[in-house]
């Protein structure tokens, strides 16, 4: 049984002008200790997917249908009180901006002790011992000193280490990292990613990494899911996807990397921009920007098929596979 099993998840936002759909039939599985990545442009619904797993979508948003099972236990039907035992203890989350995620007026140590004690009744002294232990594990020098300090007294990288320590503090099964390195500078990014990977391996924690940086993905994740306009369009092993992307959107993303353009040449880009949630195109949401789009694409949503490399939702790939099998039959 998979650790986390999300199937046909639909998330909507109830606005005054009507229902706006943010996630379309998202399904995926996550095994214990596995690391997967969610990539896509801003607004593709990556973060909403992350938040809906712990059922904390901001106000007008709600889960319309679908199921999220953790160890076979349904999460969508749990009450808030029951969910509180899942949050933090089973599933933890790491945010983008480490300055914003830590409470500015409470010392680092107290925040960690607070997190422990809100789940397990324990004396402050014992909780402090665990917190110091965790701080040392995320390679923070002189944890006793840092324990007393406030977030503004730490550097950006140090803060993100503290946040990783906080996320790890209750030995969760899953960590959802929402762009954990975007706010850091490049040299520290690598360190933090390495640390995150190391911690996940040591503690056998599954990781869902939300990012738009494909470089980050190849470094950490075993499996990658590409999202576009609220739908997973391609899913498969990271290396295969990066070497041989199937979906035109994934191809576009990869060729948009700066290192794919020759010096002096204009950088590649995907023409146009992501459709807003309000006017979701009919058929495949990517067809207005897709150079391979046919009439079929604008009429109906393609189904997922396994291309031999990854699972894709695209008519072009479907057609190619058909052609290929015809040749083979000849």
């Amino acid at each position, binding site marked *: 049984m998979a650790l986390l099993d999300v199937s046909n998840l639909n998330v909507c936002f109830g606005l005054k002008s009507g229902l706006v759909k943010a996630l379309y039939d998202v399904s995926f599985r996550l095994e214990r200790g596995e690391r997967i990545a969610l990539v896509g442009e801003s607004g593709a619904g990556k973060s909403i997917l992350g938040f809906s797993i*712990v059922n*904390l979508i901001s106000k007008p948003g709600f889960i319309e249908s679908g199921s999220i099972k953790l160890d076979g236990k349904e999460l969508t039907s749990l009450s808030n009180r029951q*969910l*509180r*035992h*899942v*949050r*933090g*203890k089973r599933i*933890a*989350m790491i*945010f983008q*901006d480490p300055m*914003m*995620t*830590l*409470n*500015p*007026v*409470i010392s680092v140590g107290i925040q960690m002790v*607070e*997190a422990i004690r*809100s*789940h397990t009744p324990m004396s402050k002294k014992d909780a402090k011992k665990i917190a110091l232990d965790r701080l040392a594990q995320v390679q923070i020098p002189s944890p006793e*000193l840092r324990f*007393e*300090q406030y977030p503004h*007294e730490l550097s950006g990288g140090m803060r993100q280490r503290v*946040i990783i320590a*906080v996320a790890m503090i209750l030995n969760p099964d899953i960590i959802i990292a929402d762009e954990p390195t975007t706010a850091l500078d490049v040299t520290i990014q690598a360190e933090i990613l390495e640390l995150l990977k190391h911690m996940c391996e040591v503690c056998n924690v599954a990781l869902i990494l939300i990012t738009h940086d494909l470089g980050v993905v190849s470094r950490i994740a075993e499996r990658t899911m590409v999202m576009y306009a609220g739908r997973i369009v391609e899913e498969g092993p990271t290396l295969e996807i990066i070497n041989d992307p199937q979906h035109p959107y994934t191809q576009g993303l990869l060729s948009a990397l700066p290192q794919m353009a020759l010096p002096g040449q204009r950088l590649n880009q995907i023409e146009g921009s992501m459709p807003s949630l309000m006017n979701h195109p009919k058929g495949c949401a990517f067809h207005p920007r897709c150079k391979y789009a046919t009439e079929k694409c604008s009429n109906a949503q393609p189904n997922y098929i396994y291309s031999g490399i990854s699972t894709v939702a695209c008519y072009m790939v479907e057609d190619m596979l058909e052609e290929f099998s015809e040749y083979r039959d000849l």
Partner: protein
Amino acid sequence: MKYSVKEMSLPISKQRFKHIWNGFLSDKLAVLSLVIFIFYCVVALAAPLIAPFDPYDPQFMDLENSEIPPYWISGDDRFLLGTDAQGRDLLSTILYGTRLSLSIGLLAVIIQAGLGIFIGLTAGYAGGKLDNFFMRCADIQLSFSTMMIAIVFLAIFQTLFGSDYYQQLAMLMLILVIGLAEWPLFARTIRASVLAEKQKEYVDAARIMGIGPMRIMFKHILPNTMSPLLVIFTIQIANAIVAEAALSFLGLGMPVSEPSLGSLISIGFSYVFSGAWWICIIPSATLILLILVMNLLGDWLRDHLNPKIYKD
């Protein structure tokens, strides 16, 4: 701000305190205000020890000694600030009066703050209907002035239970009335801060860690709203003291036998034109200085705790 090596080696919490303290010391007016305020507090606390007479003891009410002017006019060294119409030593009465005024002010504001913080936090954090309900209550409460509520309430109480009974309970009643009448100020301020804080990621982070709403409200959000609260707290104590003085002046406050600064002024007021000005003027000056000092301190706190109005 330069730190010496010795200061740098201090523990972090002490360094932080040192930083604020240094900023404070560079402001002469603030230091003077604090010194005077502390002087008031010490004097009020130690009133029974330092007062030459006990103003509550009828033994010292000798009509032969009534209306003696202050020492520098009369040369009577028994009564430094003179005596009132009943022959009570004015200095002792003022000392005890300050003690009463300060404690009524402080306790009333503690009630205001407790109520206001709880309601404001809940309203701001929960939002929606609960927020609407509490804030409309606050609007209604604010549409009546504190004085009006206090006067009506105290007058009704006095006629219902008789003034003897009232005099025994005067202090408690004043604290309750002033305390209950001004909670919306705290509630509104804290709600505004909570609405801003609620949007911040650390609240999301706390919720994702599975921390309960009560814990988030009181342990995570409340400390972030402390600086405006501290400012209101100081200024409200001054306001509560003034409210108490005004009520006492109107005869609805502390009884003559147990006078606060306000009732002293009220008693003295009838003698101003008969020549015994000191009975009214000296307690008035005491009260004015106390209020001034507290407002100055409140201003200083506001300037230094609110990053939006930095003045360098």
